[in-house]
C-alpha cells in the first residue's frame, strides 16, 4: 500500500498553508492565491490518478 502518497498530500497541504500565511502577511494576496491553486492542482493530479486506477480496477473486475 502506498502510504507515502498520504504523507505527500499532507506535506503539500502544510507547506502551502504556511506559504499562504507568509504571502498574505507580506501583502501578496494574488501570489498566495496562485500558490494555493498550484498546490491544489498537484494534489488533484495525485487524487485523480488513484481514483482512475480504482475505477479501472472495478471496471475490469465487474466486466463492464
Amino acid at each position, binding site marked *: 500500500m502506498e502510504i507515502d502518497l*498520504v504523507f505527500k*498530500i499532507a506535506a503539500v497541504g502544510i507547506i502551502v498553508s504556511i506559504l499562504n500565511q507568509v504571502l498574505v502577511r507580506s501583502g501578496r494576496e494574488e501570489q498566495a492565491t496562485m500558490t*494555493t491553486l498550484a498546490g491544489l492542482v498537484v494534489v488533484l493530479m495525485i487524487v485523480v490518478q488513484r481514483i482512475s486506477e480504482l475505477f479501472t480496477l472495478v471496471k475490469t473486475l465487474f466486466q463492464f
Partner: protein
Amino acid sequence: MEQVFAICALAVLGAVLHAALRRTSPEYAMGLAAVCCALILLSAARLLSPILSFLKELQALSGLSGAVLSPLLKTVAIGLLTQISGAFCLDAGEQSLAKAVELSGTLLAAYAALPLASQVLELMRKLMGG
C-alpha cells in the same frame, strides 16, 4: 490478515492528518480523504478477483449464461461506486450532489438490470402460454 491491519492503520493515519489539515486548508483535507479511500478500496478490491472467479465457477457448474450474471455484477459495481462518490460529496458538504449521485446510481442500476427483468417477463409469458 495483515491487510486488515494495513487498512485500519491507513484509515487512522488519514483521519489524524485530515483533522490536522481541516482547519487550515480544507481542500487538501478532502484530497487526502479521497486518496486514503482510493488506496483502501484498491487494496480491498484486489481481493475481489478470487471471489469473482469462484462466482464464475459456480455459474459454469449451474449452466447459467453470462447474460444472467453480468447485469448482477454491473449492478453491484454501480452500487459500490455511487455509494463512495456520494460519501465524498457528503464529506465536502454537498448534500444535493450526493443525492443526485445516489439517484443516478439507482437509475443506472435499474437500467443495468433491465435485461434480467425482460428475461423474467419472457419466462412468465411462456409459463402463462402467451
